[in-house]
């Protein structure tokens, strides 16, 4: 059985969903989402319980497609993230339908769910892509879908503005990606990363590095690294919240997996130190800017956007301290970090949606008095926020911990120092939420309404965060494949 059946399942599932969507009654559109979740569930099931059965042997696509542990992990990661994004969309559909076709029905929301599947298929392919061409195509599948997801609320100016900004800057970064690929191709005569790796020498280093720099620009855009981070705050704030969550988690993760694929041959070559240097610069700048710019924020969604920039910086750190040896590898650390980041960030976005539905606001001030309005939710929020800040005994700690450990072992002193400044600043801005929840009183003392679905999901994620905080080993089981 060929392993790209997984992508095909998701892709065909998406098309089928589009068909179903066309014939389903406006009140029933949410069933599209459930069907989508079901399809993704099948894919996930196949991935985890039948992965031994997949192979890429003797297939035409082997040149473009890898099925290693990294790919398996990120495919699973993408599917889980998409499922959670769909669940989040279900919670968010009131707002969504308000700004689409007909506010009272759920007429315009159906396509929204389908799009996630296409994006998911693209990302799954990205996890396996090992040729610049397939990387480009998979990336664009995801990106173009994301444009629609961002600008989906066509009666909401913020969403449209975000869509346009994303579109222009995204297309700009695509231009750099293609141009970079062209130069690498020019220098090596191939787009196969494995073959490129063999041809990296000091002699053709200028062309190669020029091409690589252009590709890195594009990938930095994708993961939200400074100085290509500019779109993130605006787009995250304007986009529908499920899109924001999807972008900040799944999209960022696929950006990193591609980055790993692209830079791996360079880092293992004699140009390794140069590439590591530029990565270290990116990491340090990203951490510093992401964390410091988050301090004055008053909108929680925008805060999460800056936090997502900051996290990109933390993830870049282990890459800059490249280690492919048999101890803790950089790839493992990145995967580990992202796995934990997924749990925490989705929990945070679920909480945000709950708060938004109750107060109609994304501001930090909307959290005021939560400690009294819903103590359980407040407690869980506190734990999640603590995890995002990186408190020990929460899962969030371990990601940062491993990243720092890697960087310290690799001797990246400047990024490490900046990183610690960033974490300290992180405490400052994350704890503002806790302060709002517990130390401030809201004018509205009515209890917060929360759907059982959200409550359960947040509870499960919180429990996972705590358990992994004490016992992080299970993440390795997933990462190790």
């Amino acid at each position, binding site marked *: 059985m060929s392993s790209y059946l997984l992508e095909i399942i998701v892709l065909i599932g998406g098309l089928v969903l589009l068909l179903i969507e066309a014939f389903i009654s406006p009140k029933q559109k949410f069933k599209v989402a459930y069907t989508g979740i079901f399809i993704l569930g099948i894919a996930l099931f196949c991935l985890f319980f039948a992965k031994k059965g997949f192979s890429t042997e003797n297939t035409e696509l082997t040149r473009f497609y890898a099925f290693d542990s990294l790919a398996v992990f990120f495919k699973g990661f993408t599917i889980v993230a998409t499922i959670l994004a769909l669940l989040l969309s279900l919670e968010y559909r009131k707002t969504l339908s308000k700004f689409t076709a007909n506010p009272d029905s759920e007429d315009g929301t159906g396509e929204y769910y389908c799009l996630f599947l296409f994006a998911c298929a693209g990302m799954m392919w990205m996890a396996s892509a090992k040729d610049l*061409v397939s990387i480009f195509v998979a990336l664009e599948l995801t990106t*173009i879908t994301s*444009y629609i997801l961002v600008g989906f609320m066509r009666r909401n100016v913020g969403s449209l503005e975000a869509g346009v900004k994303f*579109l*222009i800057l995204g297309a700009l970064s*695509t231009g750099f990606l*293609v141009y970079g690929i062209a130069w690498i191709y*020019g220098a090596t005569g191939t787009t196969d990363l494995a073959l490129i790796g063999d041809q990296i020498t000091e002699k053709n280093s200028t062309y190669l590095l020029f091409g690589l720099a252009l590709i890195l620009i594009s990938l930095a855009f994708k993961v939200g690294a400074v100085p290509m981070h500019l779109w993130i705050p605006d787009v995250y704030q304007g986009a529908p919240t499920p899109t924001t969550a999807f972008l900040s988690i799944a999209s960022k993760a696929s950006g990193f997996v591609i980055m790993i694929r692209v830079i791996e041959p360079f880092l293992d070559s004699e140009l390794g130190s140069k590439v590591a240097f530029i990565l270290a610069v990116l990491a340090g700048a990203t951490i510093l800017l992401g964390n410091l710019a988050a301090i004055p924020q008053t909108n929680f969604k925008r805060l999460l956007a800056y936090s997502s920039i900051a996290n990109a910086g933390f993830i870049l750190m282990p890459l800059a301290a490249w280690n492919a040896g048999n101890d803790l590898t950089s790839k493992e650390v990145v995967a580990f970090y992202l796995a934990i980041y997924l749990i925490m960030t989705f929990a945070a976005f679920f909480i945000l949606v709950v708060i938004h539905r109750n107060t109609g606001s994304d501001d930090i001030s909307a959290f005021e008095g939560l400690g009294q309005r819903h103590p359980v939710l407040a407690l869980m929020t506190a734990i999640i926020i603590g995890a995002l800040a990186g408190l020990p005994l929460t899962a969030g700690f371990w990601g940062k911990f491993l990243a720092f450990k890697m960087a310290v072992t690799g001797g990246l002193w400047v990024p490490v120092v900046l990183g610690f400044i960033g974490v300290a600043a992180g405490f400052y801005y994350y704890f503002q939420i806790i302060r709002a929840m517990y130390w401030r009183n809201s004018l509205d003392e009515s209890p917060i309404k929360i759907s059982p679905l959200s409550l359960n999901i947040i509870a499960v994620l919180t429990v996972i965060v705590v358990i992994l905080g004490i016992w992080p080993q299970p993440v390795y089981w997933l990462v190790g494949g």
Partner: protein
Amino acid sequence: MASLNEFLFVSGLLFAIGLAGVIIRRNIIVIFMCLELMLAAASLTLVAFSRFHIHNGLPDYNGQVFVFFIITVAAAEVAVGLAIIVALYRARQTINVEDLTSMRG
């Protein structure tokens, strides 16, 4: 016949013009056209490399095939992009980028 360097120079120039257009122009449609120009520049680079990369007496067609992918993707991008721009125009009655500053900071 022109040398590789000349092709690369032209394509680089095109790319730079595209980038400059993105930076300078205020009309989103024009910006979008400039972006397409950048993609075209990249395509030209690829074709040039492909043409001058001789394998067994034949050019390496991998690069030229890639250009088709690029064109396809660009088309899809334009389709989606124009749809968003139209939606924006319907909502705001403007396609000037300077009016899109409701989110900042």
